[in-house]
């Protein structure tokens, strides 16, 4: 870890940033954390901001993340949606892990959604792919491959129907 100076420099490693698990839903544009600098019931939120905020911002580069300090007696997290709705999450006396897990459950994208997005991204990324969301729908459209059996039938010797069942034509 080069230039690893300061408190907990592991937060500044690429591996740590990439390991972020909270990917906010697309509709969330602003994510604010309100907490006080002093106060035992604010300690969990303070730790949450210290450890997890860089990860959250790394995984959500288009979300404005703001920390508002010393405004209210109890800590809370407020998410502002594109539609104008707001989600307020009370994090009084919660530990940083509890807050993180709760956020993943409530405002994070589910594993299913993330998997689908990853697959869609992969399919559009590689031009050599063929299939559902790609340019070429079937392998028969690719140069050098066997033409589509719909247009020119495949030789009978290659077909399992004739090879294994010894069907006479």
């Amino acid at each position, binding site marked *: 870890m080069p*230039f690893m100076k300061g408190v907990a420099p592991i937060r*500044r*490693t*690429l591996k740590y*940033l990439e390991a972020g698990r909270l990917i906010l839903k697309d509709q969330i*544009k*602003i994510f*604010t954390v309100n907490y*006080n600098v*002093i*106060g035992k019931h604010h300690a969990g939120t303070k730790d949450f901001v210290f450890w997890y*905020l*860089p990860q959250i*911002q*790394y995984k959500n*580069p*288009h979300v*404005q*993340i*703001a920390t*508002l300090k*010393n*405004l*209210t*007696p*109890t800590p*809370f997290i*407020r998410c*502002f949606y*594109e539609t*104008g709705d*707001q989600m*307020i999450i*009370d994090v009084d006396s919660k530990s940083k892990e509890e807050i993180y897990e709760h956020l993943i459950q409530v405002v994070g994208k589910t594993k299913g959604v993330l998997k689908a997005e990853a697959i869609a991204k992969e399919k559009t990324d590689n031009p050599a792919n063929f299939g559902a969301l790609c340019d070429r729908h079937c392998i028969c459209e690719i140069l050098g491959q066997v033409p589509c059996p719909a247009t020119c039938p495949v030789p009978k010797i290659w077909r399992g129907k004739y090879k294994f069942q010894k069907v006479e034509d």
Partner: protein
Amino acid sequence: MSLPCVTKTFMLLGHCVPCLKHGASKFKVKRLELDNNLLMYFPKHEFVYAHDPEKLCKTGDIAIIELLPEKLTRLITHKVKEVVYKFGDVTDPLTGKKVIVGRYRENIDAVNKVYGEREKAFRYEKAPPRGWQEDKKDFTHVETHIKYHESGKDDPYAV
């Protein structure tokens, strides 16, 4: 990593700063920018002008501003959607009660009653809305500067 342009971002959380334009408020938007070499996030302040015909926002308020479908002028690109935290008059969204930093106003009042209230003490319910001392004692609505010499000219905003 470069941040997307502020003037094109749909929704922002801004801190109101003094602005002399009519029908508009200036907002300071603080966003975190990643330094690629240190891999650390640093705050970056940008200014956005937002359309505010009723002047809902006063200096110090924190508000949500939304992108206008079409720019009003070359500089006014957003409009004030909602004032989230009013300066000096913060409402806790969880309980709906008025707060002052780490205490509820009603708690402070209860303690004061036990100790004995002063006659000249500031009373939030009876105080007029913010702005009645503007240009007399409150100069937060304009950008003031320090006067280093007497030029003879009358400059009310030179502190």
